[in-house]
């Protein structure tokens, strides 16, 4: 049974091409994926991300629970509304999911986890929460709209109630706050995203989602599908769960070392395995690839290096760069001349530092 977000009919009315995405009937594009991509890089676009799973955690020991559950340290969250990106690991140090955690107050934190991992995430979180007497409450009654691009914040601010505007305008990156939207609808506005552009991700009661979408449309925000979302996040150097990492991959092997907080005395799930792996030397690395020739890098293409074979994880044509880029996982060590097997043809590629694009601009050396 395919699930539908509250915006499903709205997407169809806009002429969206719909696809199955992790059991959800979602828009892949509304005509041209490339034009939607450019709209986000140059102006403002919006994505229905209501399929994502919102989970509220309640209980006096919630922070203590999250110190145990997450590889990043929630003690970095001191001010109300602050957000943190983290991996949730199994005992072997493999990534169960990546998520964002928001701090409301000591008795209330919020997680936003992936749609495709919803059931296993909830089961895992509930299992771990018991020992801390933390209540795990999914919030399916919420919808979520991401508004992204250089003009995204200004366009959203124009729709926020006058009394809230200055406060929301001053929100720092990775911070969130409540505000009133059109007709007084209650919004939870977070300055986060998955495109490499500035913008907001807005969580709101599902019954108001169509009205907010229409209001954003009326101020010139371009509807964008999951296709553009994928090329935007790839250019921005952001991992996609299931493609770039999964339970067989540790954060070290997924370029997510920066999200692991090995602070003293915090015994989070997977820590022992991560420390062991680091001490023994991490065998696989994740790198960025650029193809200067014509062609497109794709998931599962073979990568040939001096140290042996690797594999493309996320790969695509990158509209901002007008050439193909990819993430690949390959054996650690000096890679030599790297080639990718594209339908039996060995094509030379360059290993580069990513993000490939930041704030609308191709990065140096891409």
């Amino acid at each position, binding site marked *: 049974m395919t699930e539908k977000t509250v915006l499903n009919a709205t997407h169809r009315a806009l002429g969206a091409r719909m696809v199955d995405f992790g059991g959800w009937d979602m828009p892949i594009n509304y005509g041209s994926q490339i034009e939607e991509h450019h709209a986000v890089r140059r102006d403002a676009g919006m994505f229905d991300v209501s399929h994502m799973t919102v989970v509220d955690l309640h209980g006096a020991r919630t922070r203590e629970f999250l110190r145990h559950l997450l590889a990043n340290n929630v003690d970095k969250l001191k001010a109300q509304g602050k957000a943190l990106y983290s991996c949730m690991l199994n005992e072997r140090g493999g990534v169960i999911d990546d998520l964002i955690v928001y701090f409301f107050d000591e008795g209330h934190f919020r997680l936003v986890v992936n749609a495709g991992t919803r059931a296993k995430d909830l089961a895992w979180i509930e299992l771990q929460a018991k020992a801390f007497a933390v209540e795990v409450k999914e919030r399916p009654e919420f919808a979520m709209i991401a508004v992204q691009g250089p003009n995204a914040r200004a366009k959203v601010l124009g729709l926020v109630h006058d009394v809230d505007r200055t406060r929301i305008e001053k929100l720092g990156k990775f911070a969130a706050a409540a505000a009133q939207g059109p007709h007084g609808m209650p919004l939870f506005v977070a300055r986060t995203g998955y495109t490499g552009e500035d913008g907001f991700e807005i969580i709101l009661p599902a019954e108001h989602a169509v009205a907010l979408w229409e209001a954003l449309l009326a101020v010139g925000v371009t509807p964008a599908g999951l296709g553009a979302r994928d090329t935007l996040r790839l250019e921005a150097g952001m991992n996609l769960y299931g493609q770039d990492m999964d339970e067989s991959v540790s954060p070290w092997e997924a370029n997510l070392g920066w999200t692991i907080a090995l602070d003293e005395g915090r015994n989070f799930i997977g820590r022992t395995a991560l420390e062991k792996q680091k001490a023994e030397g991490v065998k696989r690395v994740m790198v960025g690839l650029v193809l200067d020739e014509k062609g497109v890098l794709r998931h599962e293409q073979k990568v040939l290096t001096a140290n042996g074979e690797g594999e493309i994880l996320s790969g695509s044509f990158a509209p901002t760069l007008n050439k193909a880029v990819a993430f690949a996982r390959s054996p650690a060590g000096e890679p030599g001349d790297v080639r990718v097997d594209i*339908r039996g043809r060995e094509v030379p590629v360059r290993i580069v530092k990513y993000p490939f694009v930041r704030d609308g601009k191709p990065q140096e050396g891409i």
Partner: protein
Amino acid sequence: MSEIPGDLKFNKSHEWARVEDDGNVRVGISDHAQSALGDLVYVELPEVGASIQAGHGVAVVESVKAASDIYSPVSGEVLAVNELLNDTPETINEDAYESGWIFLVKPSNKAELDDLLDADAYAEVIENEDH
């Protein structure tokens, strides 16, 4: 969805074939196919002079989303390829049945054309696909 031109014949795999006045066969992909693939970013054309077989993959079109083989509707020799597609593959998205053609074949067995679908039969194929 634009009208399917009545003078075209089709593969079930969404390639079209048009018999020109001189008997050569021009090949492309249908408007339905370009729409399903999304924005095209790269076309791998066959070699001019190559001998090709009906039903075999002879070209590749790549959209942002995926790569797809193009199967020739007829056997024969490749007389010309649409060089325009090297720099502007999106021509296929914009005009699949005319300026978005992919290659031109001198057919070696005209009877193969009888095995292809006419416009009505092809319309039925895509109708069924959508349900």
